[in-house]
């Protein structure tokens, strides 16, 4: 009855890591856009906590992307250029941009939760597979679990700021 929920080949693994990279790039580009989309007056009003959150989100996503790119390199697959994803985010941002500070926080929470869910599912799919990969399984899982923990912390951080604003 069950349809396979596991990663069975280097190609499939590389593709999923590419998707992880794109998700990180979307977070990074959207965090930048959120900041830039505010008027000068809104930027002055911008809470230090939210400003720090957006900066931290962009930095952390860039760092996660690097860690995923190292794994992809070892699988001899190609990464996805940040500039390309940034252009796509740019092109669609007008239709998906949050309306206010709360909208920005909600978008950020959605990003962190999505990333957490993605890594959690990916780790489960790798653990459920007995395929041999071209990279060391233990270090692959260690890297992904480390990123998942940081995404979980990100969810907590955004939630705390949202609760403080209520």
């Amino acid at each position, binding site marked *: 009855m069950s349809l396979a*929920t596991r990663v069975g080949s280097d190609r499939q693994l590389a*593709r999923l890591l590419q*998707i992880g990279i794109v998700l990180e790039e979307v977070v990074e580009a959207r965090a930048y856009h959120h900041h830039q989309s505010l008027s000068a007056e809104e930027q002055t009003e911008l809470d230090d906590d939210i400003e720090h959150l957006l900066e931290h989100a962009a930095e952390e996503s860039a760092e996660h992307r690097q860690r995923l790119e190292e794994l992809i390199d070892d699988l001899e697959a190609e990464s996805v250029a940040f500039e390309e994803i940034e252009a796509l985010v740019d092109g669609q941002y007008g239709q998906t941009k949050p309306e206010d500070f709360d909208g920005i926080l909600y978008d950020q929470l959605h990003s962190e939760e*999505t990333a957490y869910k993605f890594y959690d599912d990916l780790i489960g799919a790798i653990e459920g597979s007995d395929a041999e990969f071209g990279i060391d399984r233990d270090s692959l899982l260690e890297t992904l679990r480390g990123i998942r923990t940081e995404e979980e912390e990100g969810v907590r951080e955004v939630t705390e700021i949202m609760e403080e604003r209520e």
Partner: protein
Amino acid sequence: MNTADQYLKAIYVVQRAENGPAATGTLADRLEVSPASVNEMVGKLADRGLVDHEKYKGASLTDEGIVRAREALQTYCIIERFLANVLEVEEFQAEARELESVIDETVADRLDTIIDRRSDCPECFDPESDACEHLDFCIENPAN
């Protein structure tokens, strides 16, 4: 996408293609599982009010099942379009089928923010080609 949603999506696509109930054998071929597995899952979906099952005819989605199936098909369309237009994967249908069980709808929603999907999705899904009929295999052009 979980197993139940993959079944609902398959029933929806087969029903549309055949203009009638989805036969067990057709679903088994499409999902690459045994007919016994299909019968077991269709029974569970029927218990949950998502599918009506008529012996010797096949499975039909209830109204609630159609809503769930359309959401699942939209998730699938996002994965296909993302693979084809962003990652430029030539065999995007085959890879989408491989990846759909690992890609959750929340993840697909985020990927949806960088693709240009039509508002009538999933109406434009063509069961024969197993892809959106408007899908061009090219790099997405960001709107200016």
